[in-house]
């Protein structure tokens, strides 16, 4: 809570070892607040946050020794060299080997001899990535990790996440770039106004929300012909019909085939569409 304002509420979320979970939500939804609460930066007024079975506030030091973290917004000592800062943070974690730090710096083309103040926004973000992964932690909590990175470096980051996942690392990352969540995450959690809306595997979420079918018929069709269980949001524009199918696709196809078809398109929702859809539904509920 911030004074009388509730930051996050009714948030019940499990992240399992070895998975990559995406944490989605618009600006101000509570993503960073959730992450900072998990890391013990914020005091909980109610509830429990346990990481590795330990309390996020009481055992924050033990947790942080096994956790790599990229804050959503950070800066470092502007007058110091990158290597000085990274060595300092590495030493705090108790890790002696600099091998991974050097490998990551090379991989992300990060000049260790430069001063922090000489780095661009993207290069500072690389420092954040290197420091989070260099200590080979079991859990990685990443708040908007690719902010400021160019597309090539974003791809490099996605590869890194996949490699870490293969090694059995658990990754919890917030993002508003839905494409990257779709690319690298196993499950996604969506938060809105500090409240968790859904937690689901991306494929299952797509199945749950359904597929969108767009059919262009030879002639205009009465939409009521598709009043079938599992079909919703039918829209007609001339001889074109668009509908969302959650189940009973067999019956829908049979009904479609009774008419002359000019064109047919059946698509799975992208995460972008799911996200927008999810939020527009929320707004409608709110309006209602």
């Amino acid at each position, binding site marked *: 809570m911030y004074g009388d304002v509730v930051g996050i509420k009714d948030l019940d979320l499990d992240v399992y070892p070895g998975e990559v979970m995406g944490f989605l939500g618009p600006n101000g939804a509570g993503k960073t607040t959730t992450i900072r609460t998990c890391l013990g930066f*914020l005091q909980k007024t109610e509830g429990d946050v346990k990481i590795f079975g330990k309390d996020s506030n009481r055992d924050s*030091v033990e947790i942080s020794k096994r956790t790599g973290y990229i*804050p*959503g917004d950070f800066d*470092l000592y502007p007058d*110091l060299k990158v290597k000085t800062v990274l060595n*300092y943070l590495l030493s705090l974690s108790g890790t002696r080997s600099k091998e991974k730090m050097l490998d990551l710096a090379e991989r992300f083309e990060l000049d260790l001899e430069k001063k922090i103040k000489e780095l661009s926004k993207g290069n500072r973000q690389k420092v954040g990535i290197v420091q989070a992964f260099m200590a080979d932690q079991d859990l990685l909590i990443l708040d908007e990790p690719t902010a400021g990175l160019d597309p090539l470096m974003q791809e490099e980051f996605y590869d890194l996440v996949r490699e870490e996942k293969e090694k059995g690392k658990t990754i919890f990352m917030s993002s508003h770039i839905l494409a990257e969540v779709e690319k690298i995450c196993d499950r996604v959690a969506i938060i809105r106004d500090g409240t968790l809306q859904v937690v689901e595997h991306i494929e299952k979420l797509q199945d749950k929300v359904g597929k969108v079918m767009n059919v262009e018929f030879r002639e205009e069709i009465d939409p009521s012909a598709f009043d079938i269980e599992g079909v919703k949001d039918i829209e007609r524009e001339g001889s074109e019909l668009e509908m969302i199918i959650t189940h009973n696709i067999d019956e829908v196809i049979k009904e479609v085939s009774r008419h002359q078809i000019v064109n047919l398109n059946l698509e799975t929702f992208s995460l972008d569409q799911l996200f927008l859809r999810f939020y527009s539904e929320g707004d409608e509920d709110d309006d209602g």
Partner: protein
Amino acid sequence: MMGRTFFMEFRKGWKGFLLFMIIILIVVGGMVSFYPTVAETEDPELEGAENVELKVDETGSNITVTWKTLDRADGYRVYADNRTSMITAEMVYNGTENSTVLPHDPEEPLYYSVVGIVDGESKFVGMNTTADKERMLDQLMETGYYNTLSGGRNISMYELKGFLSVEVFSWFFILTGLYIGYISVKTLTNDIEERRIDLIISSGISRRGYLIEKFVSLAVYSLVMLTAAGLVMKMSANGIGESADLSWKTSISVFLGFWPVLMVVIAVGFLLAVLFKNSRTTVGLILLFGFSQYAMQLISGLSRDYRWVNDFCILGYWDYNSILFDGAFKTGHFFGLLVLSILVFSLAVFTFENVDVPA
């Protein structure tokens, strides 16, 4: 890993630390080397004073000025001023005699300068004064402000220790205290405001460890600075040939006696920083704290009725005059202040462990 944050404080702040220490050492050394100039003014010998005799009559309202005559002098002029420079001098006699009677005000000491006119040119005869030539600076010590600085002691500015008491220690604590207070606040609020606190305390160091290492780093810096100031003061005293008046022990311990005061200032700075978490408020409050200490000490010296104020002033527990003049290092005060600093610091740690770290 314990110790890394301690060293990081020096790594990131060494320029500021070094610069301030150099300033302090130059000023301390410089003030000591200035002492001989002051000491020489103790018994100012006026040029040609033996040629000019001043005699105040019994009523005190007239003064007779008599001077030594010059060969072939056509006449004499007498000038009067209230300072030796005679910049604002007024001619009070112009004639051929070698004596004159002038009105005299016992409340206004004057300098009299006599010039003879020989072959149309002025020739200096001599100068004398009714002012008390001895220990004019010591008269200053009797005023309220300086009396406060001396702690009511009978201090002479013409002795090295008295000079140091007034000219070094009277400003040293306020300057050093404010600087240490400022950096104690900034070392925390900078980490918060420059958004690196999350990275640091998520890297495996506890909030307590983080504060302790920062506290210790400032404590060590203060200790080094004070010791260096003591060493420089002693070396400067040796350099001006006053080694006998100031021992190594006195020179160093008089500065080290100030260390617990700085520890309290650091602890207060940390407490303010974890409570308010922003530079603007905390810097303002720590400066207010520093100036209020200074004001309290001044108030306590104004009158015996206000002496009790000193009991609530941490500066009151650093009695540098006692060390300088009596060789008495007040161990109780020293450790009492250290305990106080640890208590305030513990409160800062407790607060920091139980508040939100701002994003």
